[in-house]
């Protein structure tokens, strides 16, 4: 009898575990985040590409960040958010210079890092609370912050393009 019960348990548990694993692997919200992170990253690269090298230091008013600083700030902040999520030491990285090529290379490096972290994130990491420079946040909140913060600064960068007579690339989500 004992053996029969154990066998039943084993079969039912294995079935449940496999079913759940399938749900977890196909976790819709995580898939959405991965999809939109990729779109957001590519969108920022497209905006960064639109500004000519000679105008990378441009800003509309003295109190603002320059175009290159806006793009580097997006990249740096995302590396920070996703390093917290990954439980890794925040990389205090910056572009080799404020030149267009170096800033875009830095942005691409940040995008790759964030996408890699999100590709391996677990449900536990999403639900867990982390201490951040902006207070206590769950993994999900860190991802939302990344979207919001990137969008906030990219939109400003787009206004710099407008000021230079360049039509910004269409909005993507």
């Amino acid at each position, binding site marked *: 009898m004992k053996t029969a019960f154990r066998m039943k348990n084993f079969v039912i548990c294995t079935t*449940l575990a496999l079913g759940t694993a399938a749900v977890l692997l196909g976790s819709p919200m995580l898939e959405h985040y991965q999809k939109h992170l990729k779109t957001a990253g590519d969108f920022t690269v497209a905006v960064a590409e639109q500004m000519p090298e000679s105008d990378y230091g441009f800003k509309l008013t003295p109190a603002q960040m320059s175009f290159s600083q806006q793009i580097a700030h997006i990249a740096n902040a995302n590396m920070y958010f996703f390093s917290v999520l990954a439980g890794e030491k925040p990389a205090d990285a910056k572009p080799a210079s404020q030149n267009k090529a170096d800033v875009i290379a830095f942005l691409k490096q940040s995008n790759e890092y964030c996408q890699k972290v999100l590709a391996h994130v677990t449900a536990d990491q999403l*639900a867990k609370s982390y201490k951040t420079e902006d207070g206590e946040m769950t993994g999900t909140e860190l991802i*939302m912050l990344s979207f919001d913060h990137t*969008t906030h600064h990219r939109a400003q960068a787009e206004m710099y393009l407008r000021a230079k007579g360049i039509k910004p690339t269409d909005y993507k989500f």
Partner: protein
Amino acid sequence: MNFQLLRNPRATTRPLGMFFRLTPPWAACALLAGLPVALSAQTKPELIKHWQTAKHFTLAVAEAMPADQYGYKPADPEMTFGQLMNHIAQADANYCARASGAQNPLTPLTGDVAKDAATARLTQALDFCIAQLTAASAADLAKMIGPDGKQMSGAELFLGGFTHMAHHRGQAEVYLRVKGIKPPDYEF
């Protein structure tokens, strides 16, 4: 699981022995089964919290521009500040109506948008979004909506509206800068 135990009361003569022997695998099963539930449940309170902050932040940006500058635009192809604020309100209401299936509370508005109208429409749209999000079930948030190939889940649409708002609010802050006004501090 001993299904017989559930059907036959006499089989409860050894409930404790049964319970303890079954606990470890069932605890493991319950834990595994609970993870995706926790994951989907996790998104909603976070969305509500940050939609509320976004409402506060967006209204602060709308407030920072003087009423007589609502017709201002830094470049010709752009929207005026008032139109930009109304576009945020209209788009949020659209996203949230699509996500929830509820009636869109805003009727389209064309032409110039004054500060009081923009503020009223932003408040109405954001309150609508927060109310629909609060009322959404896990099934509502998981439901796929829209035409094939362009489908988004309810949760994704709420996130889409949230991000679209950040996009235009970010632009609006540059309008403020050009007018010599320091934008309100970034809030998330």
